């Protein structure tokens, strides 16, 4: 029945108020799903932001470490052993710990993540960390300008006067520069400093490090180097883990996804949005069918098949899902932007998430339609007249 009268569409637009209510309901569900899934992904993305920024091909960490916020240390000698593996260009030991940072404006304290490494080497790209010269000075640190605002207006103060002094771990330090990394769910803010300053701050065994970054010479075979390091360093000693960069990122992500309740909570939130949307669409479609029952019975008496009426309901469901999705999609882009500004979390609309939520919306509407069409069977012309 091509070119037939588009009954589903005409019935939907005839009841403008009901259509608007339906679209608002669906839009609400879509936004809820986008927000929940967006937060979940932002959490996972933010938790690996440091991992992605580190410019090494192979990483070493303690097998006892579970995540960036729960790092165990291992012997620096294991990392130095890797220097002997063919293809390795350089190794960089990285110290990571949390310390209390004193807000230079209001003197309140807050836990901040501190990383220490040899400043003669660079660990992240120049875009993120343009100048590490200040780290060569005693008790100087660089401050992450994308840290949460609770740490104080450090970036503003620095740009104003060229330095900021405050206390970290009870020690007087000077902020001698800025870099960009961003807050994560685990760390609200970041500091980097030299390995020497780090050891002054924390007073600990210099032979124990939290992370080792290994760089290969251009053209070196990564798989071969990893295999050799595992064979010569990881397996005989059992006190380090050698990971490629992808494995290193996946390890951290896996912790947040599977070892915390966070993934579950956000999925649950998205699921609830989905169900709320389904109930709303069902209500709308059911009322629509109930209102048109006599008309549908008439169509049956004229010789329309049940199938035609079912298709009308399903078409309405599909039209509703598309019309409800589009405005909600654009609204969410704005919401993401606003949330990113407010929380320093990387929240962006991705094509996969857009497609995924669209499929969820479509499924939501079609399932509601499938429940609502049972009402169509009641449209029996013999009973109604």
């Amino acid at each position, binding site marked *: 029945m091509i070119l037939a009268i588009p009954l589903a569409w005409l019935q939907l637009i005839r009841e403008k108020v009901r259509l608007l209510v339906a679209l608002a309901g669906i839009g609400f569900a879509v936004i809820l799903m986008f927000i929940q899934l967006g937060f979940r992904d932002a959490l996972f993305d933010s938790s690996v932001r440091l991992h992605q920024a580190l410019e090494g091909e192979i990483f070493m960490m303690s097998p006892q470490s579970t995540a960036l916020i729960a790092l165990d240390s291992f012997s620096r000698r294991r990392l130095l052993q890797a220097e002997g593996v063919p293809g390795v260009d350089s190794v960089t030991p990285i110290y990571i710990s949390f310390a209390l940072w004193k807000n230079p404006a209001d003197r309140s304290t807050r836990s901040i993540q501190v990383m220490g490494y040899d400043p003669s080497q660079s660990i992240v790209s120049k875009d993120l960390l343009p100048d590490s010269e200040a780290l060569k000075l005693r008790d100087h640190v660089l401050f992450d300008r994308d840290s949460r605002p609770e740490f104080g207006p450090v970036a503003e103060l620095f740009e104003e006067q060229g330095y900021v002094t405050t206390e970290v771990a009870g020690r007087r330090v000077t902020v001698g520069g800025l870099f960009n990394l961003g807050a994560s769910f685990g760390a609200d803010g970041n500091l980097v400093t030299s390995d020497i300053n780090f050891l002054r701050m924390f007073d600990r065994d210099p032979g124990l490090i939290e992370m080792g970054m290994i760089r290969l010479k251009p053209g070196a075979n990564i798989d071969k180097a990893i295999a050799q390091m595992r064979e010569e360093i990881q397996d005989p000693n059992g006190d380090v883990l050698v990971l490629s960069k992808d494995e290193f990122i996946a390890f951290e992500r896996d912790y947040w996804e599977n070892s915390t309740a966070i993934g579950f909570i956000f999925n649950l939130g998205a699921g609830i949005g989905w169900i709320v949307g389904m109930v709303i669409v069902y209500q709308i479609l059911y009322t629509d069918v109930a209102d048109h029952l006599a008309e549908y019975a008439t169509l049956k*008496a*004229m*010789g329309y098949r049940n199938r035609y009426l079912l298709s009308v309901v399903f078409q309405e469901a599909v039209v509703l899902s598309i019309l409800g999705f589009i405005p909600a999609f654009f609204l969410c882009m704005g919401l993401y932007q606003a949330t990113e500004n407010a929380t320093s979390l990387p929240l962006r609309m991705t094509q996969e998430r857009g497609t995924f939520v669209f499929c969820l919306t479509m499924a939501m509407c079609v399932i509601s339609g499938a429940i609502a069409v049972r009402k169509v069977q009641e449209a029996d012309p013999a009973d109604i007249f």
Partner: protein
Amino acid sequence: MTSATDPIISIDHVSHYFGSGRLRKQVLYEVSARVDPGEVVILMGPSGSGKTTLLTLIGALRSTQEGSLKLLGEEMYKARNKQLVRLRRNIGYIFQAHNLLNALTARQNVQMSLDLHPNLTSKEKKTRSLEMLEAVGLLDWANYYPQELSGGQKQRVAIARALVSSPRVVLADEPTAALDKQSGRDVVEIMQRLARQRGSAVLLVTHDNRILDVADRILQMEDGRLSTVQREEVIA
């Protein structure tokens, strides 16, 4: 197919029951009748006498339980739903309530009937729908929605919808019940004229005495039993 002299509707000892078990109630008792092509037959009787039940059987809205009922030569005794749906496409049904689709204009409502006949182009369907609306005197109202039309106008749209596909049979269930005298009269006359032009048989259920003169034959139904009456008897 049937030849011109074969009856369009042939009813032979049809009985019908509602409910089951102890609540089973017989509403039609061995009804027999026939309607020939081009005939206008009125079916009268008090409410509850089984008129509408008989009409729904003829209209292929139910399958026949007992006896033989042939529509256009096809047996409907224990007919399957699929066959019933197909048969309905040869029937123009006019209901007591107009039952127009509120979301569609008058023209679109008429065209819904033609959408069931896929061999027409969308332009032909539109033209024929407009011609049909002209025939019931509503060409100027073609783009109005049902709620913008009066009761008589709505019923005329319903007639246009029932007749536009030139059905061999037109069944009307109290089409004048909700109308005043003049609109009721107009509606029945339009129905009679158009049915004659197209050679459709008309079976009209009514207890409206004012419209009996359009009938070629009057059947009387009482307590599920059918009898033929003379028009003069009823009017007198």
